[in-house]
């Protein structure tokens, strides 16, 4: 090695370095490379939006938002998907926000330096890196199998809240850490207890930072597909969780194939309808049905509406929908994406526009909030 060095060192000195012009040119041309790389990233976003709008833009009608999925692409929509998404996200927020904020406050304000605290910190760091589908395995094994919560909105909400918990905890910690020590000292000096100080003085100042983290977490939960596939978010749901309060509804899901088409069109099933509504037959004709009556319906029929909005509101209670089966926007989009027919791909693109619009809006809001925060607060 030493011999090589002695040979190389003099060569380095005597060799003609490239002229300053060349070096300056290289320096300037790197900016071009940097910009190209940046624009590939930004170009992806543009191409993504362009592709979705080109494929599915024309399907974004009011009917698309107000129709159930159907095996007839012309009539299919995302009603059950967006309602399901809202209900799942509300459940997620109710669980993840309080737990995440309290945990973040504990780690930043209360936690003593001891092995338990470092174990908690290691756990939070690792949770942030666990692939989302593993949370799906947890949900199947623990919530569905062991706790018997079923393939319900409650299970989905708990699962997604565990998934976004690290995001909320980390954001809360950073926001709380950013509140200057003087504010705590002032409160403690006039006799406030630790929790009073935290609750009345630290948390209000940390709020914008916490909100930013919560928005990013919620946005992630809205777009998450894999763990919900694991717990069996259904791909074909032709009812609304909120309009299905405790009535034994016509069970046809089992005799439909995964595309919602009838397995055996000739077979019939005797069912009792519990609500006034409409049954859609396999040939897409609609048949009005009355509550309390028994009907012979072909396999492949679906109950399009089991209750009116009035019924739904009158009989609304959280326990009705928490235990209900569901579908969500990303699962609906995935289902349509996995079909070969072009019409369904258009529907997938339309659902993608809605999904992308919501997540970009939420992320944009979070980024803007963070920017405002950095600019406006100078302690």
């Amino acid at each position, binding site marked *: 090695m030493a011999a090589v060095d002695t040979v190389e060192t003099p060569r380095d000195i005597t060799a003609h370095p490239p002229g300053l012009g060349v*070096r300056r040119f*290289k*320096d300037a041309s*790197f900016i071009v*490379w*940097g*910009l190209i*790389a*940046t624009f590939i*990233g*930004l170009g992806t976003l543009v191409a*993504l939006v362009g*592709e979705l709008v080109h494929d599915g833009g024309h399907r974004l009608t009011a009917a698309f938002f107000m129709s159930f999925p159907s095996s007839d692409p012309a009539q299919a929509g995302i009603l059950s998907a967006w309602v399901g998404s809202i209900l799942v996200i509300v459940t997620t927020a109710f669980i993840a926000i*309080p737990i995440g904020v*309290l*945990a973040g*406050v*504990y780690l930043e304000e*209360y936690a003593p330096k001891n092995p338990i605290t470092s174990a*908690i910190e290691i*756990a939070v*760091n*690792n*949770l942030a*890196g*666990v*692939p*989302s*589908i*593993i949370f*799906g*395995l*947890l949900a*199947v*094994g*623990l919530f569905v199998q062991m706790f018997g919560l079923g393939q319900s909105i409650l299970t989905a909400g708990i699962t997604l809240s565990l998934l976004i*918990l*690290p995001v909320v*905890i980390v954001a809360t910690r950073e926001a709380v850490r950013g509140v200057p020590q003087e504010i705590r000292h002032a409160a403690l000096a006039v006799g406030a*207890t630790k*929790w009073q100080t935290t609750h009345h003085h630290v948390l209000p100042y940390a709020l914008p930072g916490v909100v930013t983290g919560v928005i990013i977490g919620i946005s992630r939960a809205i*777009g*998450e*597909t*894999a763990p919900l*596939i*694991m717990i*069996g978010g259904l791909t074909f749901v032709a009812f609304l969780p909120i309009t299905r309060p405790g009535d034994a509804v016509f069970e046809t899901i089992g005799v439909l194939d*995964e595309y919602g088409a009838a397995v055996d069109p000739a077979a019939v099933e005797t069912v009792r309808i519990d609500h006034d509504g409409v049954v859609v037959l396999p040939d897409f004709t609609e048949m009005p049905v009355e509550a309390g009556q028994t009907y012979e319906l072909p396999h492949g029929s679906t109950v399009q509406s089991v209750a009116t909005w009035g019924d739904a509101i009158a009989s609304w209670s959280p326990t009705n929908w928490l235990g209900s089966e569901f579908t969500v926007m990303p699962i609906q*989009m*995935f289902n349509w*994406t996995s079909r070969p027919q072009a019409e369904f791909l258009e529907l997938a*693109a339309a659902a*993608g526009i809605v*999904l*992308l619009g919501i*997540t970009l809006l939420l*992320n*944009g809001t979070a980024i803007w909030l963070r*920017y405002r925060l950095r600019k406006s607060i100078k302690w």
Partner: protein
Amino acid sequence: MERDFTRQRVRVSERVMEGLLFVAAALAIAIVGGILYVVISEAAKFFAQVSFIEFVTETRWTPLFDDPHYGIAPLLTGTFMSTLVALAVAVPLGLLVAIYLSEFAGPRTRETIKPTLELLAGVPTVVYGYFALLFVTPLLQRVIPGLPGFNLLSAGVVMGLMIIPYIASLSEDAMRAVPRSLREGSFAMGATRLETAFRVVFPAAISGVVGAIILGMSRAVGETMIVVIAGGQLPQIVTSPTMQGATVTAFIAQVALGDIAFGTLEYQSIFAAGLALLFFTLVFNFIAFALQRRFRESY
């Protein structure tokens, strides 16, 4: 007396709040414990019926066939290939962006570009899957004739685009944390910004940059929807990125999409696959975390 009573009540509520806060934080340990318990206990039932030797050495993964084989190798090669493609896209692009933002761009440009790139990380993966299947694959088919409609190449490319923000943002943080004095020393010797970036700043930030790349890799290994939609879900030993293939995650999702009968070997096989996935991502995360901490300590 009245005051003493109030003070005591305050003291009790203090204790209650502190307990509540602790419980919320300790839940993180419970969740990690729950994940490990569920995955390991179900995987253990799997390994009670399928030998670990077969799991590691068998080259076929066909749990759904009449003649089932349980070799994890096809799933691992699929995961490896798609991750490799993702890194081939994301590392050069992400590092170029990071060097540009940290050493060349003004604060104004940086404050605009960084958050805009972060939007890429917020796009739902199912939307990326659609994009891979219906935009990137047709595009690649024009360049590579005979490319099948489902392939790991386009899934990997889109995964790479997805992790650019992670790698760019974390590497940029690492490079910006390099002390100014090092740069000034280099400038004083007559080096240009480019020479300083590559010979001084980048080597000084290397452990942070490698940590960022490993975190991006961990994302790619755990990504599910893009591969499920665009990769083809066919478990075979993958030797070329243009082949169809299934990743560990894709297999788990595929089984879940069918009707899972709880307690069957098929059901347990997704936990065995999940255990392999969990093992790799946790190891990657640990390495990345250790590297980043070492980096933080050195400055």
